[in-house]
């Protein structure tokens, strides 16, 4: 490997009064790098002159980058007087064949109205597909019930472990901390009114009815929702989905069903677990701040909070779990075979799942406004 010879160019007057631009040295990208601004200035200057002859026969090396650079200052055409070494001829021939079109852009400019329409159609499309997936899921459940031995039990148990068991630590930590914070903040207010014992009502209702299910659902949407979408999406990238289809294995039966059902089973259990830890955190803070002891709190809890609140929370868990699973699988199956689509699909899956969970929670709040409240 030799050190690059600096590329140079100079104007020489030769016989017949012609002015020649003579290039010398290594016209290669390594040699050009550091001297490019100076060379480009020279080339731009020379490019303005007409009737120059170009002598490239003395260069010690020429690569396509240098050729394209010269081509630019020749304004995309071969100058009439040009001599090159025969082995470099191909570069210029090929550049001469480059069609005069703009570099392709894949984003055609569209009007705002058209974009809006496309968005709306896109949304409707997703809605229809999710409905379709849900319908298929119902059929798949029936199919699994009719022939339990054919049901994808192993997939189900693996999905249950991944989305349920492994979520225990994080839901515990978050639940516990939220319980402490909620109890601590409420204590400041309740103490002012001397209503210390109402901490039980406050924590019981808010955690069992709202916070437990919501916290667990949001955490699971972030954890399992994204992982399911990414997993199914990569199966598209690696043609595993095609392989399943070619073997006549239903992707909804083998992939969607176990995951959605696993989430619908795991989430209520996680809700119960989060409730318990949030209450534990709440009791701890209540003891510190208000002197409401452990025994007193638990004795008072069944009277203060109707049991229907717990059931409501668990039902929410089932619905949220099913929603998250359905949305995650839907976006996973919609991933196109490229990495950008995979990233976008995963993001959308989590965002849509969390939004839907909160919308569903609002609907629950309206529909069940008479249930479980004293």
């Amino acid at each position: 490997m030799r050190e690059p010879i600096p590329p140079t160019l100079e104007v020489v007057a030769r016989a017949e009064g012609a002015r020649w631009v003579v290039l010398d040295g290594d016209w290669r990208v390594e040699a050009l790098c550091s001297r490019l601004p100076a060379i480009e200035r020279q080339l731009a200057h020379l490019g303005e002159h007409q009737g120059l002859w170009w002598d490239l026969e003395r260069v010690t090396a020429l690569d396509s980058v240098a050729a394209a650079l010269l081509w630019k200052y020749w304004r995309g055409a071969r100058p009439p007087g040009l001599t090159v070494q025969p082995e470099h001829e191909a570069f210029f021939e090929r550049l001469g064949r480059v069609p005069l079109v703009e570099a392709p852009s894949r984003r055609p400019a569209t009007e705002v109205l058209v974009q809006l329409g496309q968005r709306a159609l896109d949304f409707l499309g997703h809605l229809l597909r999710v409905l379709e997936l849900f319908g298929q899921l119902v059929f798949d459940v029936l199919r699994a019930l009719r022939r339990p031995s054919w049901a994808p039990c192993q997939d189900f148990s693996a999905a249950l472990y991944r989305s349920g068991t492994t979520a225990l630590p994080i839901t515990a930590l978050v639940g516990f901390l939220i319980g402490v914070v909620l109890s601590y903040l409420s204590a400041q207010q309740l103490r002012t009114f001397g209503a210390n014992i109402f901490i039980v009502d406050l924590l019981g209702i808010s955690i069992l009815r709202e916070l437990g299910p919501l916290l667990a659902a949001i955490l699971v949407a972030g954890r399992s929702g994204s992982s399911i979408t990414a997993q199914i999406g990569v199966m598209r990238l690696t043609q595993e989905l095609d392989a399943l289809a070619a073997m006549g294995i239903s992707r909804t039966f083998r992939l969607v069903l176990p995951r959605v059902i696993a989430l619908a089973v795991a989430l209520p259990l996680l809700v119960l677990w989060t409730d318990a830890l949030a209450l534990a955190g709440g009791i701890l803070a209540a003891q510190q701040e208000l002197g409401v002891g452990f025994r007193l709190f638990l004795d008072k809890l069944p009277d203060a909070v109707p049991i229907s609140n717990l059931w409501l929370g668990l039902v929410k868990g089932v619905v949220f779990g099913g929603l998250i699973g359905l949305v995650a699988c839907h976006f996973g199956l919609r991933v196109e075979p490229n990495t950008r689509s995979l990233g976008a699909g995963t993001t959308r899956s989590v965002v849509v799942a969390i939004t839907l969970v909160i919308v569903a929670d609002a609907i629950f709040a309206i529909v069940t406004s008479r249930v479980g409240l004293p």
Partner: protein
Amino acid sequence: MSTATQTRDAVVEVEGLTTRLGGRVVHDHIEFSVARGETFSIIGGSGSGKTTLLRTLIGLRSPSEGRVRILGHDLLTATRGTQQDIRRRWGVLFQGGALFSALSLFDNVAVPLRELHLLDEGVIRDLVMSKLDLVGLAADDAAKLPSELSGGMVKRAALARSLALDPELLFLDEPTSGLDPVAAAGFQALVRQLRRELSLTVVMVTHDLDTLAALSDRVAALAEGRLIAVGTLAEVRQSDHPFIHEYFASERGRLPSPTASEA
């Protein structure tokens, strides 16, 4: 540079290369060198460590023992600048093409050019289009995503990308696997033409006997972790190692191929 003078003509030098993967010895003190302008093929059965050897050559994994010198430098001990310089002077064609799936074909080929941070978009456009022309892809294909291309087109596009900076050294991993015989022959012709035009040194891993016969100057057979034979195709075929017998015996039942005679 003392090393540069010693190795003036060897583009790739491998000394005592040993690779262990999970306790298994994949390569056992392999030695070979590739001269400038030569096409060097590595053959071997599935799982014999051909691709691992190629990955070691291009520095994607470091050898357990031994040294690999590319263009006169040991990648493991070279400075960052030298490493970068060397990587710019070689092109790698991966088995599956390894095109960036989120980028159009045009942008894929433009990646190494844009990475120079030197050229304006007009020059890049000219360069990319001329590279696509070089590998026989139409300008209309430039806007397509890799998932919209056929296997042969993916290989061509990947080759265009690996040639973007006019490398001196080209690594090909199974360049014709997954191509039909016509496309494979076309690809061989393309590589031959490029070798002529760009005076390339080529290091190739292949399964395909036709490609082997059509392109190789020298062949190395890898089996049981060693290079059991190195030489021209004819010399390697003379070897009495059972692997070589089996390997080339599979060719016996085949039709005589017109490309084989050209080598």
